[in-house]
């Protein structure tokens, strides 16, 4: 198994290196589905150029990364072969994912004792678990989305990495709240939304502590620590930047969506066509919407925090203000972790088709709109809308399947009424 994983990774590295030789990267670097104003590589370069000529990159409206990222990439630039670095990152990720999986069974069957009888066929079997790492690695390595962001040198790779690490921390060092929150802070620091991951983490620790104290007792420290780290990081970039202006051009930029260039999300055209006096109101609505789901989920999924975490990653990646393939790549690579619930999903086929169709049509329609000038914005908007819809179907379907499976785990798979008739299970 391990061999094949390694083989997979190597294959991935090779395929990326190979693609770097084609002119695909140049094309991808400016594709608006792949890179956003925040993660675009050319904007980072612009920031560096400005820095070099003693102009603060934040005086303009081109550069939106946080400062240390900027310097970090500065370092990277010294490693000549950039592609190597990227693929190295990928490798890193996959290894982490792999190690994370070691602990899967523990996670998945925490309270096996409570299960109902004859649920063998829905229980995770060890052979599934064994095949799982390979699948995850394979999916990640050959996932066109993560390949594309790797080729486009999008800085989303970095944020994904930090999220990965944070997951590992979360799972691996079961007790280590300190590091976990640190990594949440890091990823929040770069792409703001992850701050919401504090909730799952808290409920996780509540969980692993086997419900020792009230859950609220777990929220407070994790949030507190998170805030501490976050402030620390901000402090660092303040010391680098020497002024707080960067706050507006990074988080302000994320929060009130001044840049309306198309992406795969729902924001851009919505706020292009929005009436001025409703703008603020709707921005609040949309931003809240992207995190509000954490509350019901926190209640519903308190028994399985890892899944909760995954749901949050997914939902934020749908509803963040500048989504890109980077976020989707992240989610899809982790999707196979819930392979055991797939058999309960209802729209997998439809969703898959929608994904494929949108991914193929998006660039075509963009070309027709922007270059050929023969189609107009609505065509492209339709596609991005469909794409978001597909993601929403997927995430809701996954949630459904997960809950449905849990139901079966506790109530057995063949559902009989008192009178012994089989019947169907419904939400009520």
């Amino acid at each position: 198994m391990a061999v094949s994983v390694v083989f997979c990774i190597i294959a991935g590295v090779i395929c990326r290196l190979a693609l770097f030789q084609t002119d695909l990267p140049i094309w991808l670097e400016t594709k608006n589905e792949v890179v956003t104003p925040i993660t675009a590589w050319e904007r980072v370069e612009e920031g560096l150029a400005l820095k070099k000529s003693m102009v603060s990159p934040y005086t303009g409206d081109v550069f939106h990364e946080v400062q240390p990222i900027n310097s970090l990439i500065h370092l990277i630039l010294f490693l000549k072969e950039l592609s190597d670095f990227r693929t190295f990152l990928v490798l890193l990720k996959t290894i982490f994912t792999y190690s994370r999986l070691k602990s899967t069974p523990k996670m998945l069957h925490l309270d096996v004792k409570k299960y109902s009888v004859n649920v063998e066929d829905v229980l995770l079997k060890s052979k599934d678990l064994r095949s799982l790492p390979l699948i995850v690695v394979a999916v990640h390595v050959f996932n066109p989305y993560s390949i594309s962001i790797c080729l486009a040198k999008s800085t989303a790779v970095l944020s994904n990495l930090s999220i990965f690490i944070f997951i590992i921390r979360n799972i691996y060092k079961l007790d280590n709240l300190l590091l976990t929150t640190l990594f949440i802070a890091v990823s929040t620091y770069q792409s703001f939304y992850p701050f919401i991951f504090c909730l799952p983490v808290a409920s996780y620790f509540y969980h692993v502590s086997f419900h020792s104290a009230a859950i609220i007792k777990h929220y407070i420290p994790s949030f507190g620590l998170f805030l501490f780290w976050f402030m620390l990081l901000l402090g660092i970039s303040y010391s680098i930047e020497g002024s707080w202006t960067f706050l507006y051009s990074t988080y302000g930029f994320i929060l009130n969506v001044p840049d309306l260039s198309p992406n795969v999300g729902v924001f851009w055209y919505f706020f292009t066509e929005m009436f001025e006096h409703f703008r603020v109101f709707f921005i609040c609505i949309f931003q809240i919407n992207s995190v509000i789901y954490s509350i019901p989920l926190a209640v519903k999924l308190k028994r399985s925090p890892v899944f909760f975490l995954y749901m949050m990653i997914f939902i934020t990646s749908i509803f963040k203000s500048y989504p890109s393939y980077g976020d989707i790549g992240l989610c899809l690579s982790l999707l196979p972790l819930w392979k055991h619930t797939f058999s309960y999903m209802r729209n997998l086929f439809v969703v898959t088709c929608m994904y494929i169709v949108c991914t193929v049509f998006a660039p075509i329609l963009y070309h027709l709109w922007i270059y050929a000038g023969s189609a107009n914005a609505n065509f492209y908007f339709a596609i991005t809308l469909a794409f978001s819809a597909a993601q929403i179907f997927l995430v809701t379907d996954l949630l459904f399947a997960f809950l449905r499976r849990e139901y079966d785990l506790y109530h057995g798979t063949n559902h009989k009424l008192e009178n012994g008739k089989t019947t169907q299970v419904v939400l009520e």
Partner: protein
Amino acid sequence: MGVLSDPKQRQKIIKAVTKYNKLLCVILYLGGVFGFLALAFEPFHAGTYFSENALLPGLVENEFRLDSEARSYNEELHKEIKKSDKTLPKDWMFKQFQNLGLDTYYHNFSLHYPFGMPRDKAIPGQNIYSILRAKRASSTEAVVMSVPLRHPGVMPNEQTSGGIAVMLALAKHFRKQTYWAKDIVFVLTEFDEIGMQAWLDGYHQTKSDYIISEDLPGRSGPIQAAINLEIPGEAVTSYNIKLEGLNGQLPNLDLCNLVVRLCRKERAKVTLNKQVDSYERESWDSYKQSVTTMMYMMWNQASGTPTGNHGLFHRYHIEALTIQGTQEEKPYKTLGVEQTSRLVEGIFRSLNNLLERFHQSFFFYILPSTRGYISIGLYMPPFGAMIAACLIKISLFQAIALWISRYEEEEEDKETEDKQSDDESQKVTDAVSGIVSIIPVIAISMLMASLAYTGPKLLTNVSHPFRLRPEDSLMFGLLALFCASVAFPKMFNKKKPDHAVLHLDWKLLKCIALIVQSLTLFSIALMNISLAFFIGVAMVPVTTLIVPTTSRSLLLLLLVSPASLVFISSIIAAWLDQHNDISQLLYMTWGNMKHCIFMKLLDLYLFGNWTYTVMSFVIFPCWLLFWAIPNCNTDIDV
């Protein structure tokens, strides 16, 4: 979401679909094709109209009165051409423009022949262009009038000297007018499209590997529209409008309408692809006429090669078309350079009135006549129906039942219940294994595709030392590749001695293949409906109906393989050139075929024509997927 989520409904649908599947497929396919053709019938499509108010076609009176100048220019030019046999009197033209007091420039470029030749060898070329500065505007916009410089050698009706005369006469007239809001750029291009491409590259500072164009010494603003003239020296009898551009892109319908309207105003006969409109409207003959016109247009569009200089402007989002003077045996009216000048003057007055770039009217349309148009909204449904045939087919397969959760199966009758739940996880693993088993096929077809795409470069390079003409080497090389790919299922057998066929879930394979195919066709249709339509017509029936291990489906598949598609199209091309005698036809076909592949590649390298890419990189692998199916064995059904 309702239908998707409600299990009962979904069951019903699926049951129905699976029951009448074949019937549905056939109906949809035929309905699609005939529905498409029916659109050419006048009552079924809308009549053309102007949606851009600014054009104000024909409201302004013609002021061009320089008939004698126009004629004398024409004669002088003839003299000059006679005088300097074999070479074009460029300097004479240059002088003429300069004497009118326009900013006139030479533009040099060089062509590196992509095939076989060493890179350093270059063919030099030279365009002449001349800018009439709008008097009271600040050179922020421009419109282009272009004429290809054709060698005196070509056939008289291919000559464009008349166009040059018209251009000079108009330049002289326009020079005196004060009402220009846009600069007018007169361009004379050498080697037709190549010169045009070079000039456009120079104007937009875009780089190309094979056409190296020098910097332009003078410039104007962004180009709003362009009219290309192909008017022979002698009087013509009718004007033919050519629209189809690179990769089947079309100019804004308003531009086309404008030209038609003004031709009518000049009482000149106007044709599309040399097809006249019939006079009576709702008769069978008129319908036939419209279908032919439509088919001609779609044929040209499908080829993806521009039908004239205008085709190259489209890439730069510049609306352009070609007005071609045609001569017939029994003219009912002859049109000299003066009439043409008046027509073009009218067009340019209207273009000058334009305040925004063309954005109002349609860009996706098919013209069955100069009076009517079929918009994307009309032709997409029939096309969609045609493609839907494959989508319906997909639903036949267990694959679906697998993708859709076991949730429905619970609804199914009680007795199946237990088995269902048993082989559930079994099924999942099977699915995975199924997909895995298919991966090699996909991999191979991708490999073949990339070979077919990159091959030509190699071939032509090797062809040079072997004293082979690049055409031949291409032809044979690609044929060889094709044969190899046809034989690829046999390669598998080597590994598996026990079975004479592929071990893979053919239904899943077909399912995937069909999805890929319909996706491909749809995305082609977005850019070039004609190409998608023709390919669809050919491939869809075969690919939907094939089943493993029947020689019939093998044959059918071979019939719609990319190779034979090219072959068929070249036969049609030959037939369109009126080579009816069969032997000659076949001979022509062979020639055409070589020529066609060769030209497509040339277009790809020089202008970025996608047709070859699509065929080799998209259609070919898709076909290979299907090709694997008849070589599967049926016994491992899921």
